[in-house]
């Protein structure tokens, strides 16, 4: 380049600061992509509906006139003492084996599912992120111990712990909360640890250390913001895993006990009469499936919104513009897969 060319370039660039375009933050971009993803939006709608049903469950009882635990042997049973089907005698979805109104019980069951799903995920995420960051950042002996502990928890058969605790302390909601939280944090921790290990090597972390920033400040102010994306995806996907976990535990009789309605224990009860009362099996199952599917699709949508380069097979089907960029699946994709059993517990 000649001298004049260099000078010209310099001048163009010197004026650049004034002309810098207003960029958008990562979160704003993610939000916009999410908003345009019809599947994700639909999932949010479904989740909101379920949540509303859970919150206003007493309204269901009031509207139908059937409290959740009330048995109606006269109207709710057939002459042979079997549950009645949908749309009979004012029971919208039929009754259960004890002639209780099914739709009211399903609504109350939603309360348990959502409460357990969200609260255990919240605690597990806090614990998982903290432990993962500590393990990844400090390395050395701390990491050696913590990483093995995380692996041990991940590989541990949940059923064994659940059975043991239920045997010794009796089945209850507390056991459910403890067991689910205990098995959920490890999956998050493992991912966070991996991410921390790689982020730790970045130059801006070195810069922070050269400024004199202490390890805790670096972890929470420099590393954590870079973790938010995968953590958010994992947390969103932990919720359906926790809901399924609770349903399974209650189904086996290790969790919520009848007459308190949980979708899991309702399905356990329904199994006995499934040949004659298909609605008792089908409707709670559908409720569970729809809720789980909605959260999984939402998690998928959040992950795609954060990283739009992911190969999207459903692009055409769900109305998104089908950008077919082939791209390598990175470990974070594999690990933040909704299908990943790294979250522990049953599926």
């Amino acid at each position, binding site marked *: 380049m000649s001298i004049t060319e260099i000078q010209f370039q310099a001048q163009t660039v010197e004026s650049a600061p004034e002309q810098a375009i207003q960029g958008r933050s990562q979160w704003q971009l993610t939000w916009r992509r999410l908003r345009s993803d019809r599947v994700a939006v639909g999932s949010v709608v479904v989740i909101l509906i379920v949540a509303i049903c859970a919150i206003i469950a007493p309204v269901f009882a009031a509207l139908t006139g059937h409290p959740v635990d009330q048995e109606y042997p006269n109207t709710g049973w057939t002459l042979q003492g079997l549950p009645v089907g949908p749309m009979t005698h004012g029971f919208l979805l039929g009754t259960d084996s004890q002639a209780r109104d099914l739709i009211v019980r399903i609504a109350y069951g939603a309360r348990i599912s959502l409460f357990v799903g969200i609260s255990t995920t919240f605690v597990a995420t806090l614990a998982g992120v903290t432990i993962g960051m500590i393990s990844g950042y400090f390395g050395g002996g701390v990491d050696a111990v913590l990483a093995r502990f995380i692996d041990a928890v991940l590989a541990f058969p949940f059923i064994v712990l659940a059975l043991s605790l239920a045997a010794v302390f009796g089945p209850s909601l507390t056991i459910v909360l403890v067991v689910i939280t205990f098995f959920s944090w490890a999956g998050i921790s493992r991912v966070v640890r991996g991410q921390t290990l790689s982020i730790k090597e970045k130059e801006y972390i070195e810069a922070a250390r050269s*400024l004199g920033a202490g390890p805790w400040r670096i972890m929470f102010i420099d590393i954590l913001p870079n973790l938010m994306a995968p953590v958010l995806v994992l947390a969103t996907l932990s919720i359906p895993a926790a809901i399924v976990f609770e349903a399974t535990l209650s189904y086996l009789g290790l969790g919520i006990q009848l007459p308190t309605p949980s979708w899991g224990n309702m399905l356990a009860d329904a199994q006995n009469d499934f040949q004659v009362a298909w609605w008792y099996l089908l409707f709670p199952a559908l409720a569970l499936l729809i809720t789980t599917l909605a959260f999984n699709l939402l998690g998928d949508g959040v992950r795609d919104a954060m990283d739009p380069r992911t190969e999207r097979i459903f692009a055409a089907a769900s109305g998104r513009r089908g950008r077919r960029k082939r791209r390598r699946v990175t470990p974070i994709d594999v690990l933040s897969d909704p299908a990943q059993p790294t979250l522990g517990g049953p599926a």
Partner: protein
Amino acid sequence: MSETGNRDIASAARLEAELWDDDVLVSVENLVKYYPIRGGGIISRTIGQVQAVDGVSLVVRRGQTLGLVGETGCGKSTLARCIAGLFQVTSGRILFEGRDITNLSRRQMQPFRREIQMIFQDPYGSLNPRRRVGSIIGDPFTVHKTASGAQRKRAVQELMERVGLNPEHYNRFPAEFSGGQRQRIGVARALALRPKLIICDEPVSALDVSIQAQVLNLLADLQDDFGLTYLFIAHDLEVVRHVSHSVSVMYLGKIAEQGLKNDVYDSARHPYTAALLSAAPAADPNAAAQRQRILLTGDVPSPVNPPSGCRFHTRCPKAQSLCGEQEPVLEAKAGDPANHLTACHFPVQAGEQLARAAGRDQR
């Protein structure tokens, strides 16, 4: 320890501090940094060492710029990080204003961190992409608790203006800035606490040529305005020539040559320095055609197993058997000023044309 013993040590330290040449800001004495390589079977043993820095001594004077040059892998970045306290040193000393800051704990090092700052090479990697620029530049204030709230914001915006950024972009993310601007952000961050020493680790290597000039000019201005001292690391000799007062040339963990800029550039004594100078692109194409390039054969040897004797002897056009046996001492050669040191058994003489080791520049 006895009372008298304690007093002796204290007074010795005081004496040393008094004898300290106040002109010298940083002194590095025989710094050695080895990285152990672990291998072996069930129990991992140390089976080798990466000899990244192998006995380096240098001095940086107040208000001046020491340029540190060398190829990739010669240990200059490692050396810089040792001085900045980011790495533990294997042996040797680092003295800052007479005080020993070698291998201090984080807490002990903290007050020195206000005086020693660093600018990094990669404008894209050295700024946290998830933090706003104002927060990044304001970090030193927060960490050292010198300013907060509105006061800090004001200080940050002043800094932004000083380095040529628009202070209204306080809340933007690094991604919204160009490479050159990001380096300015890095400069602002380093400048925040008015340090005495700024270590610049190849601050312009990743920038376009035209931007390089801007950033270098900025650094020079700041040095004048704030009386800064720079340790400037680069691999581009022309850049180093532009900014430095004195220059040290590193090869494979050791200093090959050092001295005042003009001494080293105009009368390079070490064959390695001469080779580097001959390879630097010249602005005038005619002069470049006439200049004869000295081509070095082979790759840089591995720092795990450095050559015996003089480390450069495997690639040196002037190497003789002595070079492989005995390591040359870093000393002033005959006819050179006392501060122009060379580590070579057969230094380049004035006017000598180095025989090309292999292959000519086929023009």
